[in-house]
């Protein structure tokens, strides 16, 4: 990974990190490092997630009771804090996803009409 590559990656839009975390957790409990990896891999390494930014976001989501956390053991036998989606979190995810889809669709339409 060179500096050049890093610069070409997309920075996350404000407020989308929460959505991505919730989305990642839909597949089951995961710890912070796993979430970071998952986001990076699922986006084909296109998105830049500063790992450090993840934890305050996780903390915030936990306080809003959209996710819950518990210390556990990772696959390679290390202690890690695992996050699970709560039912409130699922609802929030659905809401946010709809909102996001509407937003991108709208923005997409505008951009296309400009081009056309």
């Amino acid at each position, binding site marked *: 990974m060179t500096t050049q590559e890093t610069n070409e990656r997309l920075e996350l839009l404000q407020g989308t990190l929460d959505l991505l975390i919730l989305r990642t957790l839909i597949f089951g409990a995961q710890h*912070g*490092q796993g979430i970071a*990896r998952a986001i990076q891999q699922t986006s084909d390494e296109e998105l830049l997630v*500063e*790992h450090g930014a993840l934890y*305050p976001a996780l*903390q*915030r989501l936990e*306080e809003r009771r959209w996710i819950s956390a518990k210390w556990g053991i990772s696959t390679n036998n*290390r202690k890690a804090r695992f996050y699970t989606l709560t039912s409130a979190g699922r609802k929030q995810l659905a809401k946010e996803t709809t909102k996001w889809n509407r937003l991108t669709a709208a923005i997409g339409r505008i951009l296309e009409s400009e081009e056309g």
Partner: protein
Amino acid sequence: MWRRTRKASDFGAEIEAHIALESERLQEQGFSYEDAQTEARRTFGNVTRVQERFYETSRWPAWDHFWQDIRYAARMLRKSPGFTAIAVLTIALGIGATTAIFSLVDATLLHPLPYPHPEELVRIEDDLPGAGATDAGISIPEFKDLQRSGIFQYVVLEIFGSANLTGVSQPSRMQYEGVSPAYFAMLGVKPELGQTFDPQDQTPGFTLDVVISDGLWKRAFGSDPHIVGRSLRGDNDLYRVIGVMPPGFRDPGRTVGERNTEQWAALGFSDDPARGPNRSLRLPLETVGRLKPGLTVAAAQSQLDALVASLREQFPDDYPADSKWTVRLVPLKENVVGNVRQSLILLLGAVALVLVIGCVNVANLLLARASARSREMAVRQALGAARRRLVRQLLTESLLLSLLGGVAGLVILFCMKGFLLRLIPESLPRLNDLSINWTVMLIALAASIAAGVIFGLAPARQAGRLNLASTLKVEGRGSKGSREQTRTRRVLVVTEFALSLVLMVAAGLLLRSFWDLYKAPLGFNPQHVISVQLWLPSPNDPNTDIYGTVAQEPVFARELLRRSRLLPGVQEAALGAEPSIPLHHDGNRSALIVEGRQTQSKQTPLVERSQVTPEYFHLLEIPVLRGRLFNDGDDENAPLVAVINQAMAETYWRGEDPLGKRLKLGAGRAGVGQRASKIWITIVGVIADARTESLANASVPQIYLSLYQETPKELAIFLRGDLNASAIPEEVRAMVQSVDPELPVYGAQTLNDAVTASLEQRRFSMDIVAAFAVTALLLAALGIYGVISYIVSERTHEIGIRLALGAQRHRILRMILSQGLGLAIAGAAIGLVGAVIVAHLMAGVLYGVRPTDPATFVSVALLLIAVALLACYIPARRAIRVDPLVALRYE
């Protein structure tokens, strides 16, 4: 302020776990352990920043910082106990004194009337400006007009007096008040026991029911729980007690005596002794009313003016145009606050100044400390502390300091409460019990917080504006503060001096007034004179009155005088009516009708009158100027004669010879003075003015009648000689009761005490203002001492060089002193301007001295500068003792 649910260490552990996991993953991809660790940390970003964000989101940082600041401040204060003690004591003094004075102001000026809706209560006074008379009394038809006017909920008449209380263990004199039955309903107060009068009662004359005070209940009836229905005798008349007022209840009267009323009797004011539906017969009654709800005094006054105008048209004979009859509403609270408003505001102003000076002083101390700590502040800022955060921390420190001071002040106040209450003169009018209530506590708290912010701002601002580079550089070389800090401290010292000067001028003027008053020639000689009072009963039933006629009382009076002369040590004795007691404040005014002055026949001026025996003037050493004094021939069988004072001659016979002029006097108190209102009295002598009515006013018009010709019910015995003041009251009691065992004897006092007592209120405010002024001066001296010491220590190096180069020590001394002198003179100059303004505001409480008395101003300014020089001399001496070698090495 919810509790944090997760600990920072837990969050830290999670981050460590993340880095371990990431590093492991990287090692699987072929990184070496070290590279993997580095890369994992790099992709994570700033760990500290993340932890800070966790910290900020997971709790309320302001609260957290606040606690941190408090703990830090407490630690700092503990570390310098000397500074803390001085600062806390200064503030405690300021807050404690302010709270004490404010309690007084609260009870007297702010809540003078402890009754519901006190703003509706008014005194109703009739004025006859054409005849030069104010508060001239009211006639019964006018009273009825007021009741019907629709302006008032209640209008009541009242008359104060005293009566002999008998039928209990020891005959005594009690202060009574005859009132309309609606009196208590008007005030809106309920009795503690029994009931009060029925406001609808229409019984003419006296009803035989009375309400008594808690004090009388305890004093004369031993707190008898079955008092209701018991009877008592007042001036031989039998009354039935129907109620007892609560302990805190005081009558809203104008004098101490009236406020201490012990018995209230209901009076119908529709028949005897308030006779006649005659409009121009003004009775010496007081009128009090409660306005209709929602009516302001001004609105009520304009309605009343309209009523008066229509009455004057309707009854032109009773209200001649030249008398200009008007009726004036005065808020009842003026009874309490009228005389003391100025003195109390003066005290409040003085104490506020002390508080401000105290704050300035503490600000000065804090500044000195701030300059000592500027290195600490600079280092902390260089390490990234936000300026706002530092300012807040310094403010927290000063707030903590002032709150500590405030609490200490209140604690001291509570401990000294008993002592302080004794300092308050009895003559200071108040109806409330003094207490430090919640309002006062809250105000003290607010004052401490305000003080903390005010004196914390200067050092905090400075810390916020510190120039890091230069501070650190300068600090490195060991010198101490910035130029700007020194300037601020000089400004503070000048402020202190200016404020102190204002206070000292105020105190100086009060002192001069007091001294002038104290030294003013009395016009009579109070030395070795004791007066004792007694009261002859004046029952409503004439058949039980054994002193009722002109023939009966003089016999008693002569016997009293004969026996008085036989008492041990007595050289001279005289009798007089109660108003003849010098400086006795319950005056007795009568309408004056001068023969041949027809314009004033109906609406007349009032003069102070009393009755005395011939020996009175000689006993008090009041000289006769013209004509003659009374002699034993002026008795009940001779034509009525009067002696007037110079002031009365000047007022009514300016440029004429008053001797031989004839006059009549209207009835004074009820049932007294019946003869003098019917028969012409001839003036036979003029005496010199004496300050017997008021120490501050020597020229109150006064007229004296012969006691044998016009017999009073309230008697005073005057004794001059080598008297034993502690034995006299009992000796006189035994002597009087050997003539009539039913007579109470009371009010024994030496005239010297009477003179002292009438100076009491003035003395009280003077003492307090003087104490404040001395405190202010000390604080200012402390302030200038601090600044000069600081300057000296800052310049030790420079002084060392100067000395090493051969400077004369006295020149250095002069250099330092001139700095202090400059500050003191600047402060004095500014203070003088303030003092001129304040002195004019307090003109009303001064006596004999002009508000701009140059002697006071100059001597106060000189004293201030002298004290300043003294305060500067101590550090300056230290400067000239500097050993050049030590000073240079020290750096």
